[in-house]
């Protein structure tokens, strides 16, 4: 009787894990199969012959690396922008008292609630009038606009968990406001900053819609739209290349996740329990 509960729990857990990880596993398996094995019925669960041919083709014959570089630049710069602005904004919202502070915070959140489809046309027109259309920078700005509100709220709740006395102590001990921020607030805020950075990076890395609308030149396309237009046409999908590309697109995220997942979960919990 005592065994039923753990067995049942394990069963449910593992079937969930399998369900979630199956597409990932299938992606990896498919990317390693030779063309001849791809559409065989019944499918082979483990490739009979393992080949890295698709990866080689992807890297040598397609502009994949260029897209990859664009995505890295896009996601990293967006992250730097969002974390920088978000930290300063959250500091202001938590530490200073001024008229309309709460309204401002609510308005910021309100922009986050709007569906991006609503914002995309005005944003596009703005980019055109700024002469930024079809540049990577326009995407960086666009991603910043939709990642910043959430980042601000996330960092705000982290910031609220840092006792104001810590900063006061640093001020009395002879630090300037910037010095107190650097020496005392920043180290305390680091988990919040890391999880915000992760969140932003992932959002920007996976973003598709803005990239599709704001950028149409192959030279500045990020991975999402680049790979899509390169491998998927109306008549044909290059499955093997697509799977290889997908694996390589996921790799940075998986690596980052593996190292920093504890920060990420603490970030998602920060709104509920201040710590």
């Amino acid at each position: 009787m005592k065994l039923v509960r753990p067995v049942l729990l394990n069963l449910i857990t593992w079937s969930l894990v399998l369900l979630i990880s199956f597409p990932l596993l299938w992606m990896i398996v498919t990317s390693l199969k030779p063309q001849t094995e791809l559409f065989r019925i019944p499918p082979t669960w483990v490739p009979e012959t393992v080949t890295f041919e698709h990866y080689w083709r992807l890297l040598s014959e397609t502009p994949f690396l260029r897209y990859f570089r664009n995505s890295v630049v896009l996601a990293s710069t967006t992250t730097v922008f969002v974390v920088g602005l978000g930290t300063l904004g959250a500091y202001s919202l938590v530490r200073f008292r001024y008229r309309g502070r709460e309204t401002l915070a609510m308005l910021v959140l309100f922009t986050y609630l709007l569906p991006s489809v609503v914002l995309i046309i005005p944003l596009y027109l703005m980019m055109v009038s700024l002469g930024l259309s079809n540049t990577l920078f326009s995407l960086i700005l666009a991603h910043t606009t939709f990642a910043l509100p959430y980042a601000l709220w996330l960092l705000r709740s982290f910031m609220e968990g840092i006792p104001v006395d810590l900063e006061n102590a640093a001020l009395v001990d002879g630090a300037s406001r910037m010095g107190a921020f650097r020496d005392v607030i920043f180290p305390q805020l680091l988990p919040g900053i890391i999880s915000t950075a992760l969140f932003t990076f992932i959002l920007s890395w996976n973003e598709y819609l803005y990239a599709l609308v704001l950028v149409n030149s192959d030279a500045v396309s990020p991975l999402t739209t680049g790979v899509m237009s390169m491998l998927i046409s109306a008549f044909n999908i290059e499955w093997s290349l697509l799977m290889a590309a997908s694996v390589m697109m996921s790799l940075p995220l998986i690596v980052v996740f593996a190292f920093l997942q504890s920060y990420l979960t603490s970030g998602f919990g920060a709104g509920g329990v201040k710590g």
Partner: protein
Amino acid sequence: MANVIFKDVHKRFGSFVALEKLDLDIHDGEFVALLGPSGCGKSTTLRMLAGLEFPTSGEIRIGDRVINDLAPGKRDIAMVFQSYALYPHMTVGENIAYPLKKRGIKGKARAEAVQKAAELLQLEALLDRKPKQLSGGQQQRVALGRALVRDPQVFLLDEPLSNLDAKLRSYMRAELIELHARLGKTMVYVTHDQLEAMTMANRIAVMHGGRVQQFDTPDAIYNRPANRFVAGFIGTPPMNQIDGTAEGDHIVISGHRIPFNRADFVDSLADGPVVLGVRPEFVAIGSGDGLPATVRLAENTGHETIVTLELPDQTRISARVEAARKLDVGQKVALRFDPAAIHLFEASENGTRLNLDETPAAVIPMRAK
């Protein structure tokens, strides 16, 4: 010279008046306690001295420098916070060294100063620990260490003992008194605990409603309270305050006439309503002639008994008697007050004391230092 002067200082937060006409002159090397209930303005006073708040008007000086607009770090003060505010990511040693680091003191000089402070507070063995690994008392000592490492002119302490348990609190109280004697520095100490203020301070500023009610020695605060608030705030239990009427040489309470010596009081004391104040230790419980009362409660603390008595008009007062004294609840008794220990106050809500202080009230040995 590190005397601290508040001159006509006002502080408002929006429409809320936190401090009104604050005048304090704290001498060099003095230990002053700011004492009062929460919301009385004592912490605001300290924070203005620290530079964490700025006065709405008035002048604050340390020595001969006006420090109104000076940044906290430039005031040559050190502060111990109620929460200790130790930097969690730094070791004890780094915490203590931080104020020196911020003042550009490097290398050997810094290490020596940290070592000296650590020795003074017996923290040598803990220098490599993080604050989280320390007990409350140890954290408290680290906070003190961080304050005294750079030899500031004035120490500010914001309820530093309130997070400690009772035993550790009385130990740290003694430590702080010794530390003050050894350093000889000006210390301003905020507390809501009258025992801390009475035992540690050279002078106490009793605050209430954003105003200093009395600024004097613990002895004077206890024996010659300036007004009804101070009388009712200091002492455990505090001074009894009984509504009465002055009639010639007597105070009439519930029809009972209590004699008093009119020469001991100000000339303006007229016949009419007054408040009679008497400390519980000067309420004698007997039988026969006296103010009639009923025993409502007797609390034996071991070395004394605090008796709660009800007067005919339902007023409750307390008396302090020896522990062996046997009193039953409901027992009818007669009270007599030591005439030399009688205080009279104006009958208004926070009435001023009307005694002439050339003839101090009976001085009793209440402070055992």
